[in-house]
C-alpha cells in the first residue's frame, strides 16, 4: 500500500491536480480556499510549472482559457463570490470547447455571504455556470481521498468531452484533514489535443479557439451538437454511492459534506430499526438519475439533506418522476446540520418523532 499522509482538502486538491499533469494554475486568494493556491505557489515553481496570482478572479479564469487553448492542463480555484466572477470565462471555455478544471470551495452566500462552509452554489454549478446554452461537468467529493480521486477524473473527462469541469467542494471539506493516499506518480500520457493553438509549424492548418459565431445558423448547429454530447455524458458518466439502500423504506439524498452528516444519521437510524439508506450523488452534472429512478420503485419517501435552501430537491423529483414525496432538511448561511437534526428528520418521514 502506498504511504498515507494527512492532508487538508485544499492541499489534496492541489497535489492531485499536479499528479494529474496540471502544471498551470491561475488564481486569486479567498477564504476558505486559499490553502490550495498557497500550496500551488510552493509546488509549481519547483516542477517547472506556472503559478500566477492574477489581479482578479476574472483575469485568472481568462488566463486558464488561454493556457488550455494552448493544449496544457490548466486550472483555477476560488470560493463562491470568486466563482461568480469567473463565470464569464467559464462560458467562453464552454463556448470554445476547451477543457479546464475549476474548483469551488463553497462558502455561505449570496453576496459576500460568509466564510463558513455551504453548498449554496448547487444551482450555479449545475444550471448556470455561465451565460448561454451550456453545461459543465460537476463533481461533488465527500472525503479528502475522494477529492484526490476526482481531480484526475475531472481532467480526464474534461479532455475527453472537451468541456470545463468543476469540483464542487465546500469549506468543511477544504479545511478538514484526513489521511490520503496519493496516486503513484506515473509518467502520464496525456491525450493528444489536435485542436490546440500551440504552433502549427507549417505542418497543419491554423487552429482557432473562438466562441463568436458570425451566423445564427452556425451557432445553433454547434450548440445542438454540444447538447448531443451532453446526452452521451448523461448516459455514460453518472457517478453515485449507495449506502444501506438495499431494503430502504426511506432514502436520504445528500452530496459532499452534508452526506457525511447524513451517513452518520443513517447509521443511528438503522440502529433504531428504521430502514433508511443514503444515495450520494458524486456527479451533479450528470445528475445520477439512474439509481434514483430505481430506488423510487421500492422506497416510500426521499429526504434531501443539504447545506442550502433545497437546491437539489427538484433534480431528485425529476429523477424519480415525482413518484414519491421528496422532503427537505437543510441549514444554510455557513451552518452545518448535525447528525441529530438529520436523524430527527428521518424519524419524521415515518410519522414518528
Amino acid at each position: 500500500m502506498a504511504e498515507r499522509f494527512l492532508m487538508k482538502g485544499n492541499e489534496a486538491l492541489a497535489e492531485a491536480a499536479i499528479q494529474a499533469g496540471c502544471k498551470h494554475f491561475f488564481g486569486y486568494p479567498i477564504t476558505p480556499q486559499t490553502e490550495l493556491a498557497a500550496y500551488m505557489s510552493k509546488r509549481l515553481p519547483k516542477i517547472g510549472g506556472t503559478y500566477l496570482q492574477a489581479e482578479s478572479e476574472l483575469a485568472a479564469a481568462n488566463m486558464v482559457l488561454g493556457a488550455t487553448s494552448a493544449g496544457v492542463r490548466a486550472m483555477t480555484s476560488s470560493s463562491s463570490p470568486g466563482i461568480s466572477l469567473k463565470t464569464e470565462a467559464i462560458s467562453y471555455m464552454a463556448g470554445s470547447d476547451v477543457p479546464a478544471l475549476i474548483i469551488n470551495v463553497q462558502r455561505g452566500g449570496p453576496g459576500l455571504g460568509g466564510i463558513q462552509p455551504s453548498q449554496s452554489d448547487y444551482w450555479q454549478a449545475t444550471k448556470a455556470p455561465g451565460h448561454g446554452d451550456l453545461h459543465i461537468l460537476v463533481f461533488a467529493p465527500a472525503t479528502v481521498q475522494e477529492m484526490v480521486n476526482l481531480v484526475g477524473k475531472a481532467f480526464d473527462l474534461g479532455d475527453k468531452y472537451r468541456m470545463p469541469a468543476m469540483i464542487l467542494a465546500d469549506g468543511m471539506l477544504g479545511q478538514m484533514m484526513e489521511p490520503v493516499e496519493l496516486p503513484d506518480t506515473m509518467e502520464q500520457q496525456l491525450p493528444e489535443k489536435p485542436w490546440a493553438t500551440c504552433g502549427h509549424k507549417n505542418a497543419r492548418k491554423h487552429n482557432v479557439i473562438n466562441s463568436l459565431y458570425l451566423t445564427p445558423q452556425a451557432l445553433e448547429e454547434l450548440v445542438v451538437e454540444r447538447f448531443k454530447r451532453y446526452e452521451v455524458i448523461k448516459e455514460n458518466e453518472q457517478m453515485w454511492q449507495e449506502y444501506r439502500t438495499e431494503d430502504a423504506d426511506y432514502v436520504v439524498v445528500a452530496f459532499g459534506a452534508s452526506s457525511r452528516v447524513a451517513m452518520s444519521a443513517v447509521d443511528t437510524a438503522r440502529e433504531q430499526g428504521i430502514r433508511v439508506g443514503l444515495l450520494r450523488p458524486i456527479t451533479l452534472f450528470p445528475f445520477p438519475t439512474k439509481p434514483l429512478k430505481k430506488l423510487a420503485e421500492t422506497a416510500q419517501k426521499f429526504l434531501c439533506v443539504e447545506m442550502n435552501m433545497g437546491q437539489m430537491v427538484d433534480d431528485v423529483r425529476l429523477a424519480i418522476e415525482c413518484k414519491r414525496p421528496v422532503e427537505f432538511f437543510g441549514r444554510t448561511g455557513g451552518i452545518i446540520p448535525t447528525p441529530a437534526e438529520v436523524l430527527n428528520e428521518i424519524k419524521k418521514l415515518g410519522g414518528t418523532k
Partner: protein
Amino acid sequence: MNLKQLTIIYGHYGCGKTNLSLNLALDCAKQGNRVTIVDLDIVNPYFRSSDYKTQLAEKGIDVICPSFAGTNLDTPALSPRIYSAFENKDSHIILDVGGDDAGAYALGRFRKNIQDYGDYSAYYIINKYRNFTTTPADAEQICSEIVSACGITPTGVINNSHLQSLTTVDDVQKAYSYGEETAKLLGVPLTATTAPKNIADSVVGDNIFPVDIIVKPPF
C-alpha cells in the same frame, strides 16, 4: 506533562497543535492549575481552540480568542485580553499559535512580553504524516521559517506524528526516531511523543504523552 507557567505551541499547518494544546490544557487543569489558552491563530478559519470555548469553560479553562474567531469576519484581530494574560501570574498560559511562519508572525508581536515573563517552554510540534514535514530535514526547515517569523527559538520538540483516528501503534513507533532526529537537528530535547490514549500503553519510548482526539469534524 508538567508544564511551565508559560507554554508556546507552534509548528506546521495541521500537525495537530490545537488538539495538543487542548490536551495539555485539560491535563494541566486536572492537576489543579488554572489554565488560559490563547488562540493566536489568525490564519486558519476553522478547527481552532476557540471552537471549544464552552466545553473548556466547564473544566475551568479560559480561552482568549481572536476578536472575530468563528464569525464570518475574515479579520485577523487579536484580543487585547492577551496582554492581561501575561500579567496574571495565577494562571498557566498556553499559546496556541497558527501554522507555519504565516501563523507565527502573530506570536512575534508578543516576543517582548514572553521574554519579560521569564521561564517558558516553546514546543515545536511535528507530524511525520504531514506531507511537507515527512523528514527531519523538512521539519527543521519549517521550524527555521517559524523562528524567523516570531523570534522565539524552540526549547523542545513534541513528536505528534499521527493519522487521526486511524493511528496505529506501528504508525507512532515508526515515527519515533523521526522525533529524535528532528530534535537533534534543532539542538533541543525531544520533550514528548504523543499517542492516542487507546494505544499509548503499547508504544515503546520515553515520555509518551497520551492524547484524546478532540479536534474533529462534526460528523
